[in-house]
């Protein structure tokens, strides 16, 4: 039964669990990873556009679930803690699948836009899509295009027989309003650009504040984690 005990301690955040990929990032315990994943999940749920993928969090949590499942398999059949751990596994798995489902829906909704954005982000350290998602996006895009082509575009007159993506690409509504909570104080955030009748609007976001505002100005802050959507 000792191994089950070890998992408890693991989850009660005292033994470090370093991430496999980028070593130099300070080691995070399992519950911190879960905390970050939950935050990423909520951000993804409320953000109108697709946020950069947190594949390291997902990978780490999936490995964690496998480890817990292996441990439970070895434990004695009657142990009370088994159902507690199984419940926890189910809930973690729910968070991960819901996170990936939401991203999938956005990919399917804004396919062309996402693929264009991915071109810019591909080589930076914050790619928009994980490899699997990229492959899915490409496959999905080509399947839709080929379907539209051979059911309609093929039979259309030459000058209109192609889809120009600028016109047809579905762009996320970055100007829709979101609820947000400020994690770290950030001064002079540009809220409204200079317009003919209203001057420029600058604001300081104090820690702990909660606001309702357009998503566009705070998009970068959400990615950096200074602000989280609720």
């Amino acid at each position: 039964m000792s191994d089950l005990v070890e998992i408890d301690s693991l989850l009660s955040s005292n033994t470090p669990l370093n991430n496999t990929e980028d070593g130099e990032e300070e080691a995070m315990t399992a519950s911190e990873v879960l905390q970050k994943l939950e935050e990423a999940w909520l951000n993804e749920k409320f953000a109108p556009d697709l946020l950069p993928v947190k594949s390291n969090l997902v990978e780490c949590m999936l490995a964690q679930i496998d480890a817990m499942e292996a441990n439970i398999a070895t434990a004695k059949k009657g142990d009370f803690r088994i159902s507690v751990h199984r419940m926890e596994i189910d809930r973690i798995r729910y968070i991960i699948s819901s996170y990936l489902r939401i991203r999938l829906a956005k990919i399917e909704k804004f396919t062309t836009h996402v693929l264009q954005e991915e071109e810019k982000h591909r080589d930076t350290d914050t790619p928009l899509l994980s490899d699997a998602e990229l492959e899915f996006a490409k496959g999905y895009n080509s399947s839709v295009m080929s379907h539209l082509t051979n059911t309609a575009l093929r039979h259309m007159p030459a000058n209109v027989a192609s889809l120009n993506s600028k016109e047809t690409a579905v762009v996320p509504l970055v100007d829709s309003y979101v609820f947000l909570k400020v994690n770290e104080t950030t001064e002079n955030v540009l809220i409204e650009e200079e317009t003919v009748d209203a001057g420029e609007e600058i604001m300081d976001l104090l820690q702990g504040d909660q606001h309702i505002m357009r998503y566009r100005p705070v998009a970068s802050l959400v990615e950096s984690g200074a602000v989280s959507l609720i």
Partner: protein
Amino acid sequence: MLAEKALDLVRELHRSLGGTLSPYNEDKIRQVLEEMQTLYDQNKDGAQFAAEGQTDLISAIQVRHAGIQRNKRCLLAYLYTRLEQIRKMRWEFGSVLPPDVKYNMCEQEVQWFNQYNRLLANYMRSVGESGGLDLTQDMKPPKTLYVLVRCIADHGEFETQDGNTVLFKKNSQHYLLRSECEHLIRQGVLEHIIQ
């Protein structure tokens, strides 16, 4: 009126959005394509005269071109929205569509559904190392490990993970692992009872 048929297509689909997929309107689509072709031909004939700057011919070409664009947009929107409905079906019905739903889909749409199925399956398999993650499971946050379910119709034997076989007879109640019977609940075979 220009692009009248294309608009009918859009209206027909817009009405059926709440319920199930309306049948694939093959002949109306053909009529829209024919209208586009005739407008295009008229434009081609008129083109050489327009070179000499006869404004009335040029404006006629503009009007017809607007008609062609409108037809195109309506047709593509019709097809694209149907794809969205079909994609939603993958998540609701599962990977096999009931026959009378398939009856309303054209051959290419059925093929597209299978393509989408494969894409989704590959994606789900590639998540994480060990065997991937079935995203069609856990649609709601799990509150309990075991759920009490009632069989709505006879469904025959069911093998559970730990080797028990359960007979789903109409109106019998069972207390099973949630993860095992969630998809049966979504398919409408079982009904979840709250104690």
